[in-house]
């Protein structure tokens, strides 16, 4: 069921052109478990598929990870999983987050 789709994109370069003010104070998105690796696998895999910034990852070793720094603030993960594994979703703190120069 929960196999990661084949990914040939260089995920790290995906958002490299964007401008961000990363909030070092912490993530604006929180989950039902402190350790994302402990989250429900099937639900997490949904987020891997829908997040346009590729922030949700399952590594070759099967470990789940999430990095809020490249968030595009679209809210897709909230709509997808706020009733399951996404526990908290707020906009980033003032002046923080993505800054579109084109949009």
């Amino acid at each position, binding site marked *: 069921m929960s196999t990661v789709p084949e990914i040939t994109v260089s995920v790290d370069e995906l958002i490299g052109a964007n401008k961000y003010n990363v909030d070092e104070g912490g993530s604006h998105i929180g989950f039902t478990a402190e350790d994302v690796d402990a989250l429900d696998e099937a639900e997490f895999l949904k987020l891997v598929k829908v997040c346009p910034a590729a922030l949700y990852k399952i590594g070759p070793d099967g470990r789940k990870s999430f990095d809020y720094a490249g968030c595009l603030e679209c809210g897709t993960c909230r*709509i997808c999983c706020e009733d399951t594994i996404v526990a908290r979703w707020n906009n980033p703190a003032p002046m923080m987050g993505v800054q579109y120069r*084109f949009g």
Partner: protein
Amino acid sequence: MEERDFDIIVVGCGCAGAIAAYVAAKQGKSVLIVERGESAGSKNMTGGRIYAHSLRKVFDKYADGDVEWDNIPFERKITHERIALMDPTSNMTIDFTSKELGEAGSDSYSVLRAPFDAWLAQLCEKAGCEIIAGIGVEDLVKDDAGAVIGIKAGDDEITAQVVILAEGVNSLLAERCLGAPRPKRSEMAVGIKEVFELSPRAIEDRFLTPEGEGAAMLFVGDCTHGTVGGGFLYTNKTSISLGLVATIEELSLSNTTIYQAMDDFKRHPAVAPIIRDATMTEHSGHMVSEGGYDMIPPLVHDGCLVVGDAAMLCMNLGYQVRGMDLAVASGQFAAEAACAAIDEGNVSASALIPYRTMLENSFVVKDLKTFRAWPQTMEKWDRMFTEYPTMVADVFNALFVVDGMPQQHLVKRLLPVVKQRGLLSLAKEVRGALKAL
């Protein structure tokens, strides 16, 4: 009426919010806009194209000649409409152009929201609005009876007679403070977009458009790898906006990721030459509400109105995608209803209901109602995204491929292709779609 800091506070300086603020200021009201982006537009994204009719109406009524149409920072006037049907290795494009597409009143323009929204914000400031940018609204302030009387932003509480909520499609405040239902996964889509820099000449050559004019292009088929959705492309002045939209529910259960689908789309033989040698300058994401009329939340509250994307005012018909023209009209109507209610000294929901009435009597709700059945029809029409593009490829291959093998009559060549996909079910599905459209 009780003393308040402002007549009207607008949350969000996108198309809906900025127009609401502008119209209210033009009617002499004190207006504060609170925008969470560092500047207006810095959190916003569109495909995108704006149909200009509603913006024209606002400026005809309120601008007193202080808006020069040619100075609006649109990208290109769209005079070419293209629809493309693609399977993994083939593509069929229809290219349409006409005088009507470019005439004042039925004209449309590609836009980039960072420059466009910044211009709208300037317009609001000139009209007398105050703008606070870089601070998000965390909560709505209510009185003991539950009526909205202001906002909470940072450590400040700021009050107003009416709050106009224009926070966009990820409508946290409408859900958390006004009881709007959280949109369903099946009603929402995720959009992914990349902007590619190209010279104006290259753009015009690649799309065969007159100087300064542009093309809009929608893709159906394999671009979303079988998921309900599609691709889009808009030509800007010196760049191309290229992206995909896919329903969240379907995508979450599919066998691809949205960014891999985007990468595959860029490599498709019909797309790759368009962006050849172009530099990618931005990668963005945004949600699109696709549930149509049936997902509009309650729009009128005591002391508060919901407009634009936050009100889920968006239409995706597959061949036509609209949001910003609906946003502009809703902003205008909300401001007009709010100003009238303030003048009457009553901002209760019942006094603000003319906003809803104006929407219902306008193209906004009328069009959403006309196409009410389309979102469900499209959702069930998965063959549109898989089998039919392949059938089209088979048909055109039967027409055009010459390989030296003795040929058969056209009917003999085409019948097996159509039969394989089921002629009756094809006719039935097309009929169903036409009914919904």
